[in-house]
């Protein structure tokens, strides 16, 4: 590899140099939202549950998980299972993202051809997870008592181990794990969150509109600012 010859001409174009040009006042944050430079720039993230009704066919799960990893969405759990309709499966995703990230995740998911509809569930939606937790059987009575505290059931007992099944919200499962720790945890297996909307509200059954949220405008056409929904920790 040779060192470069010295007669490199620094060619260029005519015109006022950068420092002589006017500069605009504004600025955008990393999400491309115009911001008041005085005010905090980065939005908070929140955890939310997205339910997708999909065609029950091979490859859908890998399409969805591939999409989330490729686009770097922060995904906490992904579950899939059959529904009331043999041709349909439901995928439940728990993600933690800032507001634009959640919107983008929903839209990208909706774009996959085998995806029928996508819905972000309300904070009061029913969310459940199942855990199998296997602990040492040195104090079986106390294990049974703790299981009772969390409405758990003993599903297997051997001279050395007891396995308990606990279902409930993520916090309940996590609290249970903490309490079971005293016995010595051998193994845990969790299903991840599955969820349904409450009452007559549909979870994600009908065809959703392509874009769910339309901004609102004042009389003269000025957009009112995008509101953030309160963060929810269930």
């Amino acid at each position, binding site marked *: *590899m040779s060192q470069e010859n010295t007669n*490199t*001409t620094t060619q260029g174009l005519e015109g006022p140099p950068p420092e002589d040009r006017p500069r*605009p006042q504004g600025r*955008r944050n990393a999400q*491309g939202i115009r911001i008041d430079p005085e005010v905090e720039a980065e939005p908070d993230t929140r955890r939310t549950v997205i339910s997708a009704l999909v065609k029950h066919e091979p490859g859908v799960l*890998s*399409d969805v998980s591939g999409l989330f990893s490729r686009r770097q969405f922060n995904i906490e759990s992904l579950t899939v299972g059959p529904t009331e309709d043999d041709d349909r499966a439901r995928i439940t995703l728990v993600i933690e993202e800032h507001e634009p990230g959640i919107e*983008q995740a929903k839209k990208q998911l909706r774009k996959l051809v085998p995806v029928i509809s996508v819905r972000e569930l309300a904070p009061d939606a029913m969310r459940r997870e199942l855990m199998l937790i296997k602990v040492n059987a040195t104090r079986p009575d106390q294990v049974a008592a703790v299981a009772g505290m969390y409405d758990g059931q003993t599903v297997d007992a051997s001279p050395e181990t007891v396995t308990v099944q606990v279902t409930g919200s993520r916090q309940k499962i996590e609290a249970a794990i903490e309490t079971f720790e005293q016995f010595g945890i051998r193994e845990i297996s969790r299903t991840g969150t599955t969820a349904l909307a409450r009452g007559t509200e549909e979870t994600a059954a009908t065809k959703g509109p392509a*874009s769910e949220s339309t901004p609102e405008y004042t009389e003269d056409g000025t957009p009112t600012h995008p509101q953030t929904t309160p963060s929810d920790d269930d």
Partner: protein
Amino acid sequence: MSERAAVSPPDEQDEEHEHEQEQDEHSEQSASDSTETEPESTPEPVTTGAQSVIRALENVGVEYAFGVQGGAIMPVYDALYDSDITHVTMAHEQGASHAADAYGIVSGEPGVCLATSGPGATNLVTGIADADMDSDPMIALTGQVPTEMVGNDAFQETDTTGVTTPITKANTFSSHADTVGDDVGEAFALANTGRPGPTLVDLPKDVTLSETDREPAEARVPDTYEVQERADDEVVRAAARRIEDSQRPALLLGGGVIKGDASQACREFATEHEIPVVTTMPGIGSFPEDHELSMEMAGMHGTGYANMAITHCDTLIGIGTRFDDRLTGGIETFAPDAELIHIDIDPAEISKNIHAEYPLVGDAATVVEQLDEEMERSPQAKKWRAQCQQWKSEYPMAYDTPEDEPVKPQFVVEALDEATSDRAIVTTGVGQHQMWACQYWTYTEPRTWVSSHGLGTMGYGFPAAVGARLAADDDQEVICVEGDGSFLMTMQELAVAVREHLDITIVVLNNEYIGMVRQWQDAFFEGRHSASEYHWCPEFDTLAEAFGAKGFRIDEYDEVADTVEAALAYDGPSVIDAHVDPQANVYPMVPSGGDNGQFALSEDQL
């Protein structure tokens, strides 16, 4: 296109009402087309899966396919033997994918490429990824090992649907001879509906060999796939008010304007309301660059005036653009004073990179018309327009041509532009030559600029010229502007151009450098030319002759005009090896992540 519309079976007619109307329009067109050609004969009934594949392509009016033969795809090629579809055997499957991609760009109908399993399919991958980044309509058909061998690491087995999932709009593994034709029809429809993109159908050999008498169903997108044509009226209303009140409006036209055939609607909107127009690179050709309102291309190597306009506007109307980082530079400083009205057929593009205050999901032409109908007056932007004109004179794209220095590449591009018609098609490789081809050619028509934008694929230009040539009208010249490095990647397709007698004029802007890399090394790596200099470069004119093409060479300014004329006059592929100034650099330049308004005009400003 002929034989476009297949009639749907009576029991499905109700729910397909909308589809039919679309189809009817097409069939009217095709009816008038086909009066000039031979009368239609009833095709032979389908007997195998492979025949069903070909029938599905014929049903949608496919005229050309680009590909390379091989074991797993042989049944499909056997069926193709009896078809009127013209197959062009390419030298390399990558060439087939770029040719199909360019065919799609120029014709507006999905280009078709074929390859065998394993290496055939993986060789298509670059072209598929390229089409995906640029939303070009394309369909790839790949052979696959027989179904019962899938998963056994059989000879030439690659998980093609697995490999291509992230780079296709949709792909599918065909599982039955009865439905394989439906799969192909659906893939074709998906490639061309809504936001276009590449689709792929993987065809196991047992499926294509198996017997079936089922004719493929009408090509249509699956019912889970919805496209919104019209934007929300309330947002349209608000956006119109915003434009009316704007003092510094700018239109930003992207590739979606061309793909959505919205160039005419955008031209009318811009001229009626006197709004300056900036384009993205894929948007080149959507608005005539010789028009007073045209600011030309913005972004990394956009014009100074386009970058000033986009940086200082107060209302930006972005149409069919995904706000790629080569356009925006750093997000923080992109159009920082502007409220964004974003029109796109893909809702996921809206507010993906730049937040849109006015999100307008829908077909570009439809939404621009909605917006136009809603406008009660034009913005009062005389001062702004004068400012834009002033920027145009402040930042000219002029360059020097000293006689004692080698020929400037810009000069060669301009000479070609002058010698060709307005409808001439330009294809390019990737590098400095590509940027000069954008900057120094004056584009006035949509579908005349064919390049690799999002993926930036060296080697794209020449195979793309092959596809473009077959899609173009006979009176449209096809010019391929190449770099020495890019041309070396896919120049073996010269064999195809000679064999098929394709009239293409290739000009290699030969700087004996991986020039764009050399420019960055000078600017950002202290001039250390690691792996960017060619110590030896073939004589492209002589090489062309070896292929049976016509070779020319340019070393001096006074050779340019005559050589260009002779090369254009030659009926067949010709290669001009233009030895240009190896030190020439592309300016203006916004470094990656930089501020568009602070574009550099020379290296010392970087």
